[in-house]
């Protein structure tokens, strides 16, 4: 079978906060297109750190070093301008953060405003409508687009944040525990949404919820103390993990 070029590839990626301690140690993995890959592991295993390296969030903090390579469509993002990388990589955080001073309409388009991209009114309307439809929020807010997003429920706010990231047409979406601040029903809606979205965009999701990983991801990574212990098909990993550590995590012995 011909190998489709992976959309994202980690090559011996290391992230360190100080000279002595590495939070992420020599992670190598290739992420396939249009999949949902879950990154799991106990707290402090480096999963969020690894995720945030992909859109160069660490460049905000001068004491963080990233070594090795992270290839996005073959290009090493570590030698690219952060702004360029972030236009191609979308991120959704744990807590929904609609911009409080902007309306729902403007929130969806905020990526463009922040990048200094001007659009015609008709193009703007089109982007807002299609992305809100993509996150199944359109019907709920189409009459209140001019209101600020803060009155929406947690789940709706998170969907707004996903729409906002999607509007930039990223190659890959990074999600850092996107449902851990939401109630179970909102979580269910987001999970269904992600399953739909993977047809359009590749998703990398950090989660501490094993059930979620099982429900939505086709591939899974298990990390422990900064190392990538196991990476494979979710099904296989859950039913027949190769490594002792993975097994211990999955049955609740660690983490």
């Amino acid at each position, binding site marked *: 079978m011909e190998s489709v070029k992976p959309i994202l590839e980690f090559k011996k990626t290391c992230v360190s906060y100080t000279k002595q301690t590495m939070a992420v140690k020599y992670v190598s993995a290739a992420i396939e297109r249009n999949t949902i890959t879950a990154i799991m592991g106990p707290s402090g295993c480096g999963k969020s750190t690894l995720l945030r390296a992909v859109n160069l969030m660490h460049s905000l903090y001068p004491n963080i070093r990233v070594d090795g390579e992270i290839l996005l469509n073959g290009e090493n993002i570590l030698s690219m301008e952060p702004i360029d990388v*972030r*236009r191609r990589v979308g*991120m959704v955080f744990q807590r929904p953060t609609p*911009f*409080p001073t902007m309306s729902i309409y403007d929130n969806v388009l905020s990526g463009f405003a*922040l990048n200094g991209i001007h659009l015609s009114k008709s193009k703007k309307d089109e982007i807002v409508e299609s992305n809100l439809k993509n996150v199944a929020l359109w019907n709920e807010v189409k009459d209140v687009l001019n209101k600020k997003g803060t009155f929406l429920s947690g789940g709706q706010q998170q969907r707004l944040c996903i729409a906002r990231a999607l509007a930039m047409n990223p190659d890959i979406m990074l999600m850092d525990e996107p449902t851990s601040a939401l109630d179970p029903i909102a979580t269910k809606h987001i999970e269904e949404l992600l399953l739909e979205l993977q047809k359009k965009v590749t998703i990398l999701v950090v989660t501490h919820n094993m059930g979620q990983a099982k429900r939505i991801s086709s591939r899974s990574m298990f990390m422990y103390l900064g190392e990538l212990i196991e990476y494979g098909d979710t099904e296989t990993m859950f039913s027949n993990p190769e490594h002792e550590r993975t097994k211990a995590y999955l049955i609740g012995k660690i983490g």
Partner: protein
Amino acid sequence: MANQKIKHRLAKDKLMLWTICIFATLTAVPLFAILGEVLLRGYDQLSWSFFTEPTPTAYKAMKAIEAGERIPGGIANGIVGTMIILSMAVVVAVPVGILCGTFLAENSKRRFAKVISYLTDLVQGIPSVIIGIITYIWVVVPMKGYSAIAGSVALCIMMLPLIIRSTEETLKILPASLKEAGLALGGNKARVMLKIQLPAAFGGIFTGVLLAISRVIGETAPLMFTALGCSFIRWSINKPISAVPLLIWEFFNDPHLQELIWGASLFLLIFVLTLNLSAKYLAKKWNQ
């Protein structure tokens, strides 16, 4: 025996409570005393002509007193002067102050920013009369004369630290997730600050500006050797100009114009207290 001791301690406790309550309430008294006095002495001076006419000459005032009439004239020259000086000061202090506060918030770890922060505190503590002297030396002397410009430079220097601090503090309180979400969308630091952070900080910044204005609007000393004062309404900015606090000082020093003190003071006091209360109210509202 033990019972006695406990009673004793409980009595001391009650005494402490009452002392604190009494003295705390007493501190509220001066506010109402001052307010009341200025109100009582000044309310019947307030009239349309009081706000629209300039100050009378000592001669006119003397004649009116002799004739047993109310002194003609008012404080219009002071009101116009204050407005002019204040607007010029605000136009410079607000943008510079916000930009400087943003600098301090964005670079809080760097040594240079710490030095600037330290110096901002220093400027904030400079006595107002010294700022008057400095502005005299740097503006009045080179310009060879007193002017509204000099007055506004002095007030601007006094407003700067307050605006800088409130901008810096409001920005620092914003959740980091806001900035990160903006950056994650690909915005550069400038755009994230201009479109996300500063708008979110607007409430705190605006309150800070209101408070800075209320602080300088009643200042007399810095204007004494810069704007100097003027007995008629003047619209030009490079000549001596009046201001409400300066007028009050003039009235205080002139035996014939004593009556006018209270109307002017009432006006000033109401203005300042309204600004203060509005700032407090807005701060509370925006913090919800």
